[in-house]
């Protein structure tokens, strides 16, 4: 599998660390809503099909990416910086 890092370009999956379901929303730090915390920590959308995920390019630029990937074909549909802000300027 190749994942196109917006900064580094297409790289082998060996350079990346999977950080799981990208749909999860962390409650506000001071939130006491335990159900919301439980959902964030333990529950996962686990679709057979397109999946919004977080990956870290841990063996490259170390940025976290939002990746839409099909869990049946492993096709990568899109990648973007999780952080936003820095614009990918394409590879030199």
């Amino acid at each position, binding site marked *: *599998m190749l994942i196109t890092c917006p900064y580094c370009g297409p790289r*082998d999956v060996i350079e990346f660390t999977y950080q799981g379901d990208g749909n999860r929303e962390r409650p506000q730090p001071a939130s006491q809503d335990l159900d919301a915390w439980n959902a964030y920590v333990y529950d996962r959308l686990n679709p057979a099909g397109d999946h919004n995920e977080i990956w870290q390019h841990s063996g490259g630029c170390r940025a*976290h990416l939002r990746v839409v990937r099909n869990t049946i074909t492993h096709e990568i549909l899109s990648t973007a910086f999780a952080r936003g802000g820095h614009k990918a300027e394409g590879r030199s």
Partner: protein
Amino acid sequence: MSPRRTETGGCIDRLRTIRFTFDGAPYTGHIGDTLASALLANGVTLFGRSFKYHRPRGLLAAGVEEPNALVTVLRGEVREPNIPATMVEIYDGLVAVSQNRTPSLTWDIGAINQLGGKILSAGFYYKTFMGPVFGPLKGTRFWMFCEHFIRRAAGLGKAGTAPDPARYERMNAFCDVLVVGSGPAGLMAAKAAADQGARVILADLEAHFGGSANWSGETIDGMPAVDWAQRMAAQLAGNDNVRLLPRTTVWGYYDGNTLAALERVTDHKEVAAKGEPRQRYWAIRAGTVVLATGSFERPLVFPDNDRPGVMLAHAAERYVNEYGVLPGQRVALFTNNDSAYRSAVALKEAGAAVVAIIDVRSDVTNEMRRLASDAEAELLAGHAVVATEGGKALTGLKVQRFDAMSGSLSGDERSIHADSLLMSGGWSPTIHLASQAGAKAEWDPARQAFLPPKPTQRWIGAGAFTGSFSTAEAIAEGRAAGLQAAGGTASSGPLPVVEAAPGDSDPAPVFEIRAKGKSFVDFQHDVTAEDVRLAHREGFVSVEHLKRYTTLGMATDQGKNSNVPGLAIMAEALGKPIPEVGTTRFRPPYTAVSIGSLAAERFGDLKPERLTPMHDWHIANGARMYSAGLWYRPMIYGLPGETVEQAYVREARATRDSAGIVDVSTLGKIAVQGPDAAEFLDRVYTNMFSTLAVGKARYGLMLREDGLAFDDGTTWRLGEQEFLMTTTTANAGKVMQHLEYFLDVIWPELKVTVTSVTDEWAGAAIGGPNARAILAACVTGTAVDNATLPFMGIVHGRIAGVPVMICRLSFSGEMAFEVYSGAGYGTRVWEALIEAGKPFGLVTYGLEALGTMRIEKGHVTGAEIDGRTTARDLHLDWMLSKKKPFIGSAMMDREGLIAPDRLELVGLIALDNRALNGGGHIVEELDEANPHDSLGHITACCYSPALGKYIALALVKGGKARHGTRAFVSDPLRNRFGPVEIVSSHFYDPDGSRMHG
């Protein structure tokens, strides 16, 4: 001259003789020979024994699909088992031996299994060997008794145990176009793509490019096809943008158009050059792949079709045209299609007598009749072979009239004398890689074959792979594929002109001749047509059940020969068309791949060694090293004759009495910088860091999101916006990822940079009553007195002319300091400290003494923060700030995490004055013989020089409530049972007066 070597022809170099041995007997061959062709030329017909019945077997094929002729290649003590003789290029000194026979290939006692016959039918294991329900052999015993013998009888070759001295390497390659297969289609594709300027890799599993051109006997552009192929390959070799990979099997088609290939770099050489790998594993990321992998000829299924001398027709053509070897003198052919007629002519031209062509079709075209007469062969149309004769070599066969529509036999049997029977059951495109790439094959009723699916990744097919079996089609498709793959559209002039024998590509749908005798579908695994029908009878009718129940297709040829005939027989039994039985998805590898090649450069070098700046000093000064993750750390600096315990007790005692120094460079260190650094640390740690003064350090605890303890360490505030965080050695990488995740994903608004600076700093911790005096003796540029450097204070100065940063903090419980310097100065500073310490009797100490002193102090490490404990379990709840939320704060009070029966940290003292062991358990009851009701376990233990006792830290139910009570350590694995007292984990100097000084 060898008995079966032709006078001329073939791609071998007849002037160069190669000497080798097979089963100890010396033979000769020529450069260009495979072991199979060379032995065949020497008149060898018996190559192997089958898996189950140990039937004698000869060569079935000439290539990678060979199921019978498996050999072990020996290089000294190093064994390479299960290699098809057809894929071994001979070299001087080659030593090969046959397999799965005792005592010899000719006389094999395993052949007694043939008498088992129908008892050893498919699935027989499942129905027996269960043994008695009562008595000494009940349960699994009887089966395991039988299994003992079954295991010894099974198996093919024998693996070696001597380490392989060869080297293996991995190569990462990138290209625009990868062409797999170098037959006419592949050559045309590579050429067309290269002409467009694309970066091209052309790989072929054979030693020479050309594929079928090397043996087809056809003419291309007015020259022999083999010459045309060589010219094409030479042209390609001259291009800078083309990489040619002969002897390279592309075996895996993975996601992202990543393909895995195995290049056999030196397997054909007597000796490798210096540094040359035996095999090279290519990981190829291709823009587009052209699959020009050709096709396999299928065997026909008929009684005793496994007798040595029965061979695929095209294989015989290859032996004749490529290697100059006749598989027999009197040759008969048995076919359901036209391609065997060309083979007949080739055999005839090479000097064999073609005695008969037996064709299941009654309706044979005039063109084929003409080829039969060119071969001077008797044509028996509408006939089938019903038996073969001979022992370990074919002597003849029997034929009968056959009706292809009904499959029925009629008339009298007729015997034909022949020493070679060549069969052709039609052709199956080699679609494995396309199937691996992720789609289902499609059955083509005309070709009677599975054709490649529509691409699910970026590949284009060409030639026989697509079911286009003629060379002219291959050439046209190859060029089109190459152009398309390279993004070109321009037509590049006229196509090469092919002169080939005529023939229709569609076979008659005949796969099996049903007559009396064992008819083999899977040769190596001895799966017969009757086994397939038995599977049907017992309901194992889906293709996967068929495979698994009969082991059809599970042999080393992976069903390349047996897949379609097996399906066809099942389809007939079910009365369904073949595609409704299904087809198996092919998975990597296409052919078996050496494990060494996959380990590649990591064979013999699994993991790098991580070394501290003072590593060489430790080694030179007698340290015994301990491997901790990837790091090496001193365990003890033992004196001659000392045990480990004596050494660490001495080191710890000396530290507490005077001073000791330990290398702490492995601690994880992370620079946390930026305007929001303090805010970030407040969120990450359970305690406050924003209140920490510049120039001070603080101990911090992190939780995971789920509220359990994660890691601990001190963090130093070096500036208003600059912190140096330390982590445990083991968790450095995990903590770094944890921080990066929160900064990138959760709190992107925070302006914080985190950088691993573990390797920037060498760290030495010096502790003990004299530690400060030693520092004072060697540090310049700063005082180190209590006022300048209070507990948890940080100063900057120099040691031995080198800038250092000193933090006064203590893990040992003594007055102690961590001295950090640039890693390149680590040894220099270390040596200066040791020099300064000499008058004080400073000792170097290792991990064991470090552990001893931390146990005495009751400090926790990874043994206690084990991913299952909470801050409360470890009595660190004082660190849980109530003033702010932090990672884990919302989750840490769930019912299961505050339950009263959780394991809590305690101290233990052995009351029998014997050593305790890590991993020993704690029980209440004195019942050594019957371990039960564990209360918890020991996480760390030592002999405490400070207490003069064997002590331990433990996680025990009830925890503090048990302080002062007695229990027993129960360690049945090491036969250790004895009384202990449960005490506080703070054994030594609980109020910290020594470190606060």
